[in-house]
């Protein structure tokens, strides 16, 4: 390949150079690697603006809430004191794909970031099945705008405090706002706005199943009333939006907004390893291609390698810097290893990764990116080599046992177990407690009962659970019960009524679990 002139000298970036980099990187990404992306919109911002972007969770606009202020203050404090550096970039799953680049970055870093965000993350947003099914990139910015306007309108009509309290309660239940097994309908700001009014009126009539207490003519044989809900419901926010007896229409609408935003983040929570790994894998390849073509200098590539090495640094478990597995490291190692297995498979690879050993590597990584989430990705693609390189081992911490047990290490006996347990660790339903709406006492005090199924005897965090229950009570406005079930027995029961919240061992209240 003929060498070309470097795009830029020195470390200061210019807008022309950014444009050229974007064009060149885009060319390689599309022609050589078939990365399919949304259009890019690159925005240059300052450190202060980056902190703003952090606290609105990356959204270009957001509704107002104190918790975002808290986030901002804490980021600001830690940044000013030098505890944390700010990310080089932040990228939004939208169409066009908005990427924020910090002005402080050097020329090399900007090139890295363009490769990482505008082509790596961007193509992941467009290609991965979770994002395709759960989010609508072209609608999100509109939707958030709608949400912000609607919420500030509510603040004007009903007072900032009322709205804030409601949002507090919704945020507490946000993680329970997703139907995990049902695909949501895509959202759109304008559509929402049009339908919202209709819905408001209609809904209020519908809700009142719970109110329909005027006795019907008594039938002679006492028929058993059907359970409500018929089946346990996992989407608590949805259940509240549709069924909470006393919520005003505008309150239901806000519950809905929080729920919709929870859905938008749902794919991101399940693809941290893959998303970061994919973006890192591509910035690494794209930057090396730029160097090979002579578009960046030796100095650039050295600076790049240093940043890259920092990004994929994985402290060991006993290091003071250890704070979990670095998604960049694991993801990058796995995608790199997929390529290796395709190009130079060993005997071991043929045993462990027979499906793709020796296959076309580009095809294989694209397939992996499009059709997996962290859990299944690890289960499918974590090779013994990566396990060995990272020296992964798995432990079992059982509170019935005096000591922690090492259950598998990076050896022939352990690979499969490490792989399974690591995959399990990224299964959302293992990270978060499994809580469902169990029953509403339609005929009695209208109380709602939730059920928590303990997995491996892991209980709920009691203090937080009590607080969340208060929030739930604020939305439901009748008594609230939560039963934490261990091996088919209620292990701990939480209750909340108008003035207090308390727990008991659950033996006394067997009403709901008896069925």
């Amino acid at each position, binding site marked *: 390949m003929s060498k070309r002139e470097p795009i830029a000298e020195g470390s200061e970036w210019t807008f022309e150079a950014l444009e050229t980099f974007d064009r060149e990187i885009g060319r390689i990404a599309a022609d050589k690697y078939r990365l399919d992306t949304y259009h890019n919109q690159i925005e240059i911002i300052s450190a202060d603006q980056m902190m703003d972007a952090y606290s609105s969770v990356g959204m270009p606009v957001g509704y107002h809430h104190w918790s975002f202020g808290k986030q901002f203050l804490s980021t600001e404090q830690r940044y000013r004191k030098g505890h944390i550096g700010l990310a080089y970039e932040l990228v939004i799953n939208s169409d066009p794909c908005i990427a924020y680049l910090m002005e402080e970055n050097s020329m090399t870093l900007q090139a890295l970031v363009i490769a990482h965000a505008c082509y790596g993350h961007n193509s992941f947003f467009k290609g991965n099945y979770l994002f395709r099914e759960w989010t609508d990139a072209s609608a999100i910015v509109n939707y958030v705008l709608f949400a912000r306007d609607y919420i500030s309108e509510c603040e004007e009509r009903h007072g900032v405090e009322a709205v804030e309290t409601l949002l507090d309660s919704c945020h507490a239940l946000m993680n329970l706002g997703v139907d995990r097994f049902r695909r949501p309908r895509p959202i759109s700001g304008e559509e929402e706005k049009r339908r919202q009014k209709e819905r408001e009126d209609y809904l209020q009539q519908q809700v009142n199943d719970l109110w329909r207490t005027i006795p019907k003519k008594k039938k002679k044989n006492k028929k058993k009333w059907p359970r409500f809900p018929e089946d346990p419901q996992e989407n608590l926010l949805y259940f509240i939006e549709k069924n909470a007896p006393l919520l005003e229409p505008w309150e239901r609408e806000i519950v809905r907004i929080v729920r919709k935003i929870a859905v938008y983040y749902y794919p991101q929570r399940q693809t941290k390893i893959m998303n970061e790994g994919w973006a890192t894998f591509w910035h690494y390849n794209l930057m090396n291609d730029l160097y090979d073509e002579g578009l960046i200098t030796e100095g650039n590539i050295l600076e790049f390698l240093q940043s890259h090495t920092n990004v994929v640094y994985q402290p060991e478990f*006993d290091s003071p810097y250890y704070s979990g597995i670095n998604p960049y490291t694991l993801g990058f190692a796995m995608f790199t290893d997929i390529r290796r297995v395709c190009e130079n498979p060993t005997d071991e690879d043929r045993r462990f990764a027979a499906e793709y050993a020796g296959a076309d590597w580009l095809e294989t990584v694209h397939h992996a990116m499009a059709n997996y989430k962290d859990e299944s990705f690890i289960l499918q693609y974590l090779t013994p080599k990566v396990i060995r390189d990272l020296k992964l081992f798995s432990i079992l911490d059982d509170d019935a046992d*005096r000591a922690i047990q090492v259950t598998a290490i*990076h050896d022939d006996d352990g690979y499969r177990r490490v792989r399974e347990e690591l995959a399990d660790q990224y299964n959302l339903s293992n990270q978060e407690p499994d809580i469902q709406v169990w029953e509403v006492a339609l005929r009695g005090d209208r109380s709602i009962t939730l059920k928590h199924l303990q997995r491996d005897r892991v209980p709920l965090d009691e203090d937080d659970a009590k607080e969340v229950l208060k929030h739930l009570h604020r939305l439901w406005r009748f008594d609230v019960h939560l039963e934490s079930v261990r091996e088919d027995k209620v292990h701990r029961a939480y209750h909340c009524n108008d003035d207090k919240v308390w727990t008991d061992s659950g033996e006394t209240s067997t009403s709901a679990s008896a069925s």
Partner: protein
Amino acid sequence: MAFLIIDRRQQGKQKSAVNRQRFLKRFRKHIKEAVTDAVNKRSITDMERGEEISIPKGDISEPIFRQGQGGKQRRVLPGNKEFIRGDRIDRPKGGSGGGGGNASNQGEGMDEFVFELNQQEFLDFMFEDLELPNLVRKQLKDSDSYKLVKGGYLRDGIPARLNVVQSLRGAKARRIALGGAIRREIKALEQELEALGGDEESEKVREITEKLERARRRANQIPFLDDFDLRYNNMIQQPIPTTSAVMFCLMDVSGSMTQDIKDLAKRFFVLLHLFLKRHYEKTEVVFIRHHTKADEVDEEEFFYSRETGGTVVSSALELMNTIVRERYPTDSWNIYAAQASDGENWQDDSPKCRDWLVKSLLPLVQYFAYVEISSGKEQELWETYSEIPELFPDRFAMRNVKEPADIFPVFRDLFERKST
């Protein structure tokens, strides 16, 4: 590949400003306590700066359902060195080993949420809900402050004040008015032409076509926008009524005031001065210090000079009286005074002080605050003064300060906004 690079740096960085305010509002109780603490702890020269505020994590947390500790927890960790399968490791002490991986996703496990309150916010919290009592609008004295208000439109003005809507509206009206006759003519000619049919050879047609063209040319000559159409916003100046107030700071610097007591007194006046500077820009301050004899001094001397001597409190009141009568006529000034003393006075002087106050000063002033700084019992001056509040219940207030921590609460108490 189409792309777009936008430079956002010039746009406001305070997108989070509203959220920040919401946060401060929500935790105002904590913040206020922290501010009070800070004011008490700081040196008197160091009042105007931000402060690091910490709030207990528990009060600020956003709870969600999450897994607690206990049960069977499996985890995969990187960086194995010597473990082999079946090894048993003792649990790390302190319990953090149990659910460490999942439990503390908030990072360092701090017990306090710490953030920086900037100077503006700090002072806002410091002087929140405080005001000068009984302030009334007296005569418009300083007429140097104006505000601009809209006052209709003008035919000429500077380009920046051009009112586009008005101008275009005028232009449109003019075009309609001037073009009426021509348009009528064009219409008539067009109809005539149509009536004759498309016979282009006919002389009549040629004639009409020519006429039509001329008319159209004339119609086009009416300018779209004429100088005549331009309208400019008229801005007129309106004087803002100002309220003028003067604060007299009377401080005892006699020998009986120890260094500590003087410090406390100064602290009080520093707060007062800061408060006035911040909330009442136009307020004048008169500093009077006294031992056996009273002097009007400037700010510098008031706070830093070390002169000292015996005590005749009435001298200060007398001087204040003189200054008020000479320079601050009550029909145009709100008059305030704050007096700080250790309460010790020359024996026969206290009744004199009371007389000065009751007979001469209190009828003139809006508010007079007396702060006695003494660690023990009330002193002479306190006893003499204690009859006054009954006579002037909303104009006279007295408080006792024993230690530095009292200063700020007393200050707040004296200038608290009364809900009326």
